[in-house]
């Protein structure tokens, strides 16, 4: 009896610890969600006091916070579009072409991911100051594109490398032009990778604080606004934004996993459907 219990424990303690750690990871998320429904008893108190939907009804009660959210979204959008285009082109070159200087290019893509944000932020600032570029919205965009590009390259490259080239060869054999092949075969197949890369870029940009802090001057993004508010008092609406970000990201992940499952099922169904008439013939 004792030894059976011992084995039961030995088999499950790892999972037990794993679940405890997951609990630790979610503890602050639970606090953020809880406080988004809280009516604080006074400014600067963050205990759960009373349930309310007011924060969700007026997320923009502190209007400059919403301005900052909108600005972060604008910066995120521009940085995402630019970095996704640049990174996708680079990924195509790296996976599909032979060229001299590949090692140098790989290094150039890898280093920004391994450099501390602090160093990238301070070095860009010294460049902008030396070149007398006024800091603001566009210097933030430039910085965000810079640190997003590498992540886009890595994500799209993974998708491209796993692609079956024979599909494109088949299209060309069937007299599709190069452009038609790209438009009808290559692009749809790589698109999930590009979309994933774009979402990653947007979330990196939207949440960046350190690099933005050095290159923004008086332009305030959402993380910058929260940083400033942390020194004064944090309105409960900050937690509404935090919860909304969490929910939107979860929805996107859920939707993509559902699509993936459906696509896999469809892929399984094709040979079955194709097999049927063949059987009848025999």
């Amino acid at each position: 009896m004792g030894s059976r219990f011992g084995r039961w424990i030995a088999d499950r303690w790892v999972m037990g610890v794993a679940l405890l750690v997951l609990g630790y990871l979610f503890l602050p998320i639970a606090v953020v969600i809880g406080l988004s429904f809280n009516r604080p008893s006074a400014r600067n108190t963050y205990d759960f006091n009373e349930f309310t939907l007011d924060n969700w009804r007026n997320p923009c009660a502190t209007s400059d916070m919403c301005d900052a959210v909108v600005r972060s979204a604008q910066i995120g959008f521009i940085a995402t579009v630019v970095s996704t285009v640049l990174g996708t082109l680079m990924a195509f070159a790296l996976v599909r072409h032979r060229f001299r200087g590949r090692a140098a290019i790989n290094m150039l893509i890898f280093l920004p991911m391994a450099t501390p944000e602090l160093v990238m932020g301070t070095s860009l600032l010294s460049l902008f100051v030396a070149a007398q570029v006024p800091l603001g919205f566009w210097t933030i965009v430039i910085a965000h594109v810079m640190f997003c590009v590498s992540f886009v390259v890595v994500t799209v490259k993974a998708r491209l490398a796993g692609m079956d080239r024979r599909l494109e060869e088949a299209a060309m054999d069937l007299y599709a032009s190069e452009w038609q092949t790209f438009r009808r075969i290559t692009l749809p197949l790589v698109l999930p990778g590009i979309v994933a890369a774009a979402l990653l870029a947007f979330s990196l940009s939207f949440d960046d604080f350190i690099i933005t802090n050095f290159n923004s001057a008086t332009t305030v993004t959402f993380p910058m606004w929260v940083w400033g508010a942390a020194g004064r008092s944090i309105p409960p609406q900050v937690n509404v934004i935090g919860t909304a970000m969490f929910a939107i990201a979860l929805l996107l992940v859920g939707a993509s996993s559902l699509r993936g499952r459906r696509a896999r099922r469809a892929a399984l169904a094709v040979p079955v459907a194709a097999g049927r008439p063949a059987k009848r013939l025999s």
Partner: protein
Amino acid sequence: MTALAHVPTGSGQSASPPAPRRGRHRLLPYLLLLPGAAWLLIFFAVPLVQLAAASLYDPSGSVTTGYAMTGAVGNYPAALQEYWPQLVRSFVYTGIALVLALLMGYPLAYGIAQKAGRWKNLLLVSVVAPMFTSFLVRTLAWKTILSDNGWLVGLLRDVHLLGPDGRLLATAGAVVLGLTYNFLPFLVLPLYASLERLDPRMLEAASDLYASPLRAFQKVTLPLSMPGLVAGTLLFFIPASGDYINAELLGTPRDNMIGNVIDSAFLVKLNYPQGAALSFLLMAAILAVVFVYLRKAGTEEVL
């Protein structure tokens, strides 16, 4: 350093790209690379050179009057002498946080990779999900949890783990906890990728050969998870040692890390040469630690 390029992404270079079909394709790869590579050169590589130059400016200049380039190498020892406690503290805090993260992250990655069965994907998403909210909002939530009149402090005081005036917030422990928390997923994901490939039959074989579970872990699981462990450790260590958000929000000025000093050198004191010198010292220290660590870990093959 190339260890990072390969391990966490899993998109290796093994399949060599096909030879170009036609001559006019010879220029195409360069055209595709040009905009992105130019962006990275101008806004990543050139700024590093500029930062190096700024670290050698004459410290008597200012942002408004301009700096003279005098090759003032003395900025480095001067900065180090003034701020070595913060630099050392950055690595001590990050080191403790890393040990805590390993103690929590290894069982988590192992559990998901080997024991979770059909819950694997859901649990994996749960590891990343906390990062969907803003970094700062998460850290502020910790500030609430650790606050003096919060339930956690109350509970710890009741069971006498904390004295009646004991605090959690504004202590070194809070900063370390914040670092551990915020960078834990970076450690878990590559570790998971390694452990997922571990064939459970290897462990069965070890136990058939009379290895105790501990010995099997030492001789089989740990060595096979080494690439993920190394990559995850670096992905944790590099951003954590340069972080100053946790020190600022959860600690006091006594717990300042080198990031706080660099931030104020550039944005408050406007002392660019000092800030630039400290940035380079941080990067050099990180590179040194990473290099020594890769040597010690005996994983030259992942380089």
